[in-house]
């Protein structure tokens, strides 16, 4: 088994675990972590594809490496936004959960 195939399978496992966590776990913080796991899997796919496309004396396809860096920045910003929202939610309600104890639509009229 070549290293590209092995890493490709690893990334598939990471994407699978991340997606499962994102869908199945009710805790928002764990969902955010699962998203990051998912993201790591995706960036590993970028790396694997870049490695496969290596040529002209380069270790990997530079276009995909550039895309990976941009993708990392986006994923970082997304995580920061999600954590900030979660902290605000905790400040405002005292809980950090998405489970609707109070239905979000139940009322805006008594505020």
């Amino acid at each position: 088994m070549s290293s590209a195939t092995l890493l490709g399978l690893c990334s598939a496992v990471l994407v699978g675990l991340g997606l499962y966590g994102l869908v199945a776990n009710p805790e928002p913080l764990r969902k955010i972590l699962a998203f990051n796991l998912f993201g790591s899997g995706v960036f590993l796919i970028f790396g694997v594809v870049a490695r496969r496309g290596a040529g002209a004396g380069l270790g990997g396809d530079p276009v995909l490496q550039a895309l990976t860096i941009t993708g990392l920045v986006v994923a970082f910003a997304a995580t920061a936004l999600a954590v900030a929202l979660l902290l605000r939610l905790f400040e405002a309600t005292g809980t950090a959960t998405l489970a609707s104890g109070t239905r979000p639509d139940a009322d805006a009229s008594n505020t």
Partner: protein
Amino acid sequence: MGAATPAGFLLPLALMAPLTGMLIAFALGGRYAHRVALATVPVGLALAIAIVIHLARSGEALEYLLGGWAPPLGVRLRADGLAAAMMLATAVIIGATALFAGPEFGARPDAPERRAPFAFWQLLLAVWGALNTVLLAHDLFTLFVALELLTFAGVPLVCLDGRGETLQAALRYLIFALAGSALYLVGVPLLYGTYGTLDISLLAMRIHVDHATVTATALMTAGLLAKTALFPLHLWLPPAHAGAPAPASTVLSALVIKGSFFVLVRLWFDVGLGSAAGAQLLAALGAGAIFFGNVVALRQARLKLLVAYSTVAQIGYLFLMFPLALSAGSTAADGAMALAGGLMQVISHAAAKAAMFMSAGLVYAALGHDRIAELAGVGRLMPMSIVAFALGGISLVGLPPSGGFLAKWLLLSVSAATGQWWWAAVMIVGGLLTACYAVLVVMRAMTAPAAPLVPKAEVPRASEAVALALAVCSVLLGFVAFLPIDLTAIGRPHSVVLGAQ
């Protein structure tokens, strides 16, 4: 230097104008944010109009190569008819929202500076800039970045008031959107690894059916559906859109969800990832959205939630164009007509839904609640808002001469031409259900109240006029059928269907 077509420089300008406004507003601070936004609107609108005029005159798409580098190494911006029409609609709706939000978020010279208005004006311009990027980007990775910008601008709009429920809605929205973008991003390296490019035009020339392409299509489509809130991935939409302040719900419901839909259209029609079987599945989900959204909307006790569920239903109509354009029996003319119908549905829904969210927000502000059962007398108190709501409803139902009528007419004609009568039946039943809730709300508002209605807050007449103007626009949109040129057909590639090759 870098312009591939002479007027190509308009494209980066259209992209930069709102973002420059946003940065200036950020630098100047909260007291000036409103004025900067109002000053940016005419600039952006003028650029959108200039692009549409160029397209109409030349009959060809505008292109711009960033830094003068040609694809596959460089990045190209491209405005075809679809993009130009959407840009114009976006500019009009953003402009109307900026006027509408004046009384709620405008700067008051004597009042202390508040955070929510400062954030609102910047996010409004950010949504605009991100949408223009989505419309003009011509490679799959730039589209990803643009969609992320759109999400990051849209999510905070949901929780501007900082209440627990809206923060929860915003977080749920963000998690759905992130799952969607991660799924989309998996498809990018798969396509790049197979074809060696991400440029849409180059991909369209090389595309063929293999495992990697089919996998990438499925993953990217699923991701975009989560972002577009197509049934059954719509769970985040109603609390987010109904909980947001009125001007924010307007932008979210009218424009933000259309961004990811537009990317899906690019993938399926321009790259040529579409397949006939997949298209039937998408439309089946769309039909589910139409029935579910309309029935749940009918059962809502609150006006803003009703309008939000109506958005869930209207998203369903957008997906009916896929099987009409991509089925085995569809000719190129059928495809073009279905696409024109889909675009008309996007634009007329944007105008109508913006008007409806605006009037629902005004009703909420005036009464202090938006319970549909207690709307009696509102028709007399704020006639302009209720007329705007009714006209928006007319466009959603699809009565002539509204934009909704033209959209459904085009889609119905294609479903008759391609022998797919079941999608026509879905549209007709959906229209009837829409009529039920639109009439229900207007009837409640028109009945005489038991006691004279006293508004809790002064009704801003200027904002009412904006809602009414947008509603009139959506009703008159049907007349674009009489324009001498078909904007949507400009610069379109001949669409290729994967499954039919």
